[in-house]
Structure formats: C-alpha cells, structure tokens
C-alpha cells in the first residue's frame, strides 16, 4: 500500500472501515451522536478531543464492544455488529484502554492470545501461530522479554507487549484506545513511532485515540477532532490542527507553530507572563 494514498486521492480514499451516522453510549445515555467517519486504509488515523467527548466510545462502537444505538459501522461493506465476531477478529484487532494481564502471565503467553481467532477446539496451536507470535514480538521489540512475566516490565515495555498481542492477530485494521496514557513523553514517542511504522511499512490501518495534542499532531495522517459526542473536524494535520480548531474543540488558547525539524504543526499554550515576574 502506498502511504501517500491519503494525500493523492483526497476525495474518496480507499476504505474498509467506516462509521455511518453512528450514535452510541452506555445504558440509556447517548454519548456519541451521528458520527460519520471514513477511515483511510494503510494510514494512521488519530482521534482527539476533550475528556468525555466520546472518542473512546466511538472507538469501542467501531470495535463492536458497544452496540450502535443508531447508524452502523461498516467493515468491508458489512455491518460489523451483524458479522460473526470471530470473522471480524480475523480482520480487525482492538487494544483496549489500560489492559491488565493476569498475575504471572509471561510475555510470550500474552502475545500468543492474539492467535485466538485463528484457532479452534479442532485446530489448536500450529506452526503458523508460532511464526506469527515470534514475528509480532520482533516487530514490537519485546522478543528479549519473551520469557518474563508481563507484570515485571515497565509501563512502556508492557504496552509494547500488548501491541505485539494485537499484531499477532495479523489483522489489516487495528484500533487502539489511548495506548500512550500514563507513559513518559519519550516512551509515548517511541510507541507512536512503532505504530506509524506498522501503518506505513506494513500497510495496516490504525485508528488511535490519543490524549496528548502534540503527539497526535506529530504522527497523525488523518486527524479527527471530537467534541460533545460529535465529529467537529477531520483532515490532514496541516489543515486540521489549527489555533481556531484547538480553541473551538478544547477551549484552549494556543499558538500553532511549525516544528523546525519536521515542519509539522505544534501547539504552544498562550500564557501571559505572571504579573510578579513582569514587575521585576
């Protein structure tokens, strides 16, 4: 898959995953309202928005963890909620927010769970599964921890193990719910580099919910902003990540400047110098 697909064919990028007028929520409470989103193939799509804006709810609805109260999510043209769940799992993987592994589980055992949809009572562990698990651990750079308990690793290493698990599922589409939360900035950047590589080099489609604005701006191919359950704007970072958009969506007064190295936009909150400092 060429990585420039998004830029060259802006009108109708090829897409296997789309939300059509989706509303959803918990119990009777509607959180996401009438969201329509076409996820470009082989690209890194990032969902951002203030807390409670519905970005995670939208992701969970696309992943069929939550039902859609209205509208539908289409995977390869078929409603994902009506497709046999194992069949979906062979094409689309999900890394939930803040996953926890059972005490004592080893890294290789965790990654091996990614093979679940490819196995059955009749067809248990195969050579193909072993190859996929090794390849996934290699790609996520956790092979050196294979025999260690997941709980012994640092936050960033642990998160890479979970990424390896969804990689072992070998799906073209991967959804990740706030994979960088609670990680140091350096570790966040490393994880996002890994995700970008997966999208651009392996041609997989990634949808990631993020919290950190500048990390989103640095890595997104398509940036989607949500507020109060609605989709406010979407587009390439250059056009979507503007001071106006940040003010509207986050209520954040910020200057958006170009990063001198990559040329991508970066936001800097506008803070007037404190009076005490100004007086000196």
């Amino acid at each position, binding site marked *: 898959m060429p990585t420039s697909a998004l830029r060259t064919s802006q009108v109708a990028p090829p897409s296997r995953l789309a939300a059509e007028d989706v509303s959803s929520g918990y119990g009777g409470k509607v959180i996401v309202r009438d969201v329509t989103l076409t996820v470009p193939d082989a690209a890194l799509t990032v969902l951002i928005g203030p807390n409670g804006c519905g970005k995670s709810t939208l992701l*969970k609805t696309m*992943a*069929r*963890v939550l039902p859609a109260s209205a509208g539908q999510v289409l995977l390869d043209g078929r409603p994902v909620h009506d497709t046999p*769940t*194992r*069949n*979906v*799992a*062979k094409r689309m*993987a*999900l*890394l*939930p*927010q803040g*996953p*926890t*592994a*059972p*005490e*004592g*589980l*080893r890294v*290789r*055992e*965790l990654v*091996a*769970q*990614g093979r*679940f*949809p490819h*196995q059955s*009572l009749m067809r*248990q*562990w195969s050579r193909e*599964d*072993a190859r996929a*698990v090794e390849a996934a651990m290699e790609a996520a750079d956790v092979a050196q921890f294979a*025999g260690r308990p997941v709980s012994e690793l640092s936050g960033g290493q642990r998160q890479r193990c979970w990424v390896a698990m*969804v990689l072992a*599922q070998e799906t073209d589409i991967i*959804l990740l719910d706030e994979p960088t939360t609670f990680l140091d900035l350096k570790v966040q950047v490393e994880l996002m580099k890994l995700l970008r590589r997966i999208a651009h080099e392996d041609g997989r489609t990634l949808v990631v919910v993020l919290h950190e604005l500048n990390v989103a701006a640095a890595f997104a191919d398509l940036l989607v902003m949500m507020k109060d359950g609605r989709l406010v704007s979407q587009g390439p970072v250059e056009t979507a990540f503007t001071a106006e958009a940040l003010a509207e969506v986050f209520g954040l007064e910020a200057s958006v400047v170009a990063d001198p190295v990559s040329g991508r936009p970066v936001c800097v909150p506008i803070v007037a110098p404190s009076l005490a400092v100004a007086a000196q």
Partner: protein
Amino acid sequence: MSVAALPRGSLFAWAVPVAGVAALLLAFGWHISVGAKTIPLGTVMEALVAYDATNFDHVVIVDLRLPRALFAVLVGAALSVAGALMQGVTRNPLAEPGILGLLIGASFAVVVFVGVFDLAPPALIPLVAAIGALAAAVTVWGISTAAPGGATPLTLVLAGAAITAFLGALITAANLLDEETFEELRVWLTGSLAGRRLDVLPWALPWLAAGLVIAFGAARQVTALAMGEETAVGLGMNVGRLKALVLVSVIALTAASVAIAGPMGFVGLVVPHAVRLFVGQDYRLVVPWSALAGAAYLLVVDIAARMALAPVEISTGLVTALLGAPIFVWLIRARL
C-alpha cells in the same frame, strides 16, 4: 511454562503429566491402605485387580475404603476445576464455590429438601443442590452489582460472606428445631467423605461429567477472557455465551460435590493457585492440572483427617478449612 513455550515432543511435555497421574495413583493407593487397620499396598492392588469376597481385607477395601477414595478424587477434582474457572472468568483471585456462597446455597437447599421430605429420593439431591447453588450465585451477583462501585472482587467476597452467614444461621436454627433429622446431616454439613452418600453417587456422576466436559472445552476461551472483557471481544470471543457456559459448569460441579460430600470449603481456592504457580496462566493447562491436583490434594487431606487424631476421625471439610484459611489470608495480602 505454557504449551506454546514448549518444543513439541519434548521429554518434559509428556513426562510431567505421566508423573502427575502416577502421583495421583500413589495417593489413591495410600489413601485406601490407611485406616483403623493399615492394609499393605500389595493387598490393596490385589483387591482391586483380583477381588476375593472371602478375604476380609478385600471386603473392607472394596466396600468401605474404595468409595471414600473415589469421593475424594471426584470432589477434589470438581471443586478445584470450579474454583479455577471462577477465578479466571471473574478475574478475582478469591473466587471459589465456598467463598462466593455457592456451597452454602447448595447445602441449604439440600437441608430443606431432606428436612421436608423424609424419604428424599437420592436422584433429586444433585438437582436440588444445583438449584440452591444457582440461586446463591445469582443473589451474590445481584448484591455485589448493586453495591456502589459494582461487582469488584471485594464486593463479591463480601456478598458471599453475607449469604454464607445468613444461610448458615438458618441451617443452625433448623438443626436446633429438629435434631433427629439433622443427626444424619450434621457430619455431612461439615464436609465429609465418610460414605453415607453412596446412594447419591450414580446420580451425581452425570452432573460431574457434564461440568468437567464443559470446563475442558471452555478452557482456551477462559484464558483469553482473563485478559479482560474488551480484549476478549476484540479477539473474537462471544463473552456472554462463555460466561453462561462457565456458570453451568461451575453449578454442575458444585452441585455434584455437595451432593456427595457436603460443603467442602477452600479446596477450590487453594488448588488452582498452587497449580498456576507451576503451569502458568493458560487454562488449557490450569483446568486439567487442577482436576488432577485437586483429586490428589483431597486424598492427602483425607488421609490427614483420619490419621491426625486416630482413632478419632476429624471431618475432612474441617481440615480443608484449617489449611485453606491461612492461604486465604495470604491471598488477601498479596493480591487483593
């Protein structure tokens, strides 16, 4: 070590299960040989292979000791597998038929049934126990989901404790009101393998078999569910169906063991945790090893129950509780 981590056909892969089964058989033979009169292992083998009705030792072995050993094997395996499944599905290290109130629910139902109908048909006892266990499970689940914060490991355990205290009090009250009927149930209610329920055994076996078959079949999915519900959905699992299946299995296993031996506490807590230390978190290994280790564990506990204060015999359930309570405390400190 998981199955995945072991090279195929390695010596370890088959030698360990063989050694496990051998250890179980040894415990089984030892259990039969121990008693008021110690019978040599050779005679035990002889009685099982070439039974001689005129040999008094053979009669003792086959009529008295063999059923008791079988009870220990069946109840130990059933409760351990039930505990393992409950811990995996609820992601609660303290989940177990006893702690979550299923044993007392099943026992209470049996007590009422036997108390009301003087000639309670043994065929119905496992069914009555299953209804009691299910009612208790639903009640405990209901109480803990209604609690602020929902069904956490802590609220589940507290709800189980409440049900256990409540039904325990009712059983004691009934006991005081009608001592005659309860004379027979008194020992059973402490968890006993002393063999009064031989008539129930054939009726408990189908429940036990069904529970074990479901448990073995669902093991792979329980491993994946232990990663969390959203992860399991992402992996393509039908979580609702799996939970229903596991509930059926746990209820059947609990009902069968209560029908045979009364409420045998803590077996389902101790054994799966010990097994996980050795085989890891893969339930395709945890479930069969829990069955094997649970059977061996209860055999050894029952030997201790008969030997500790010989010739006086302690109820087996009391010994499992004596061993289980400290482990329970350790788990609260280490895991909750």
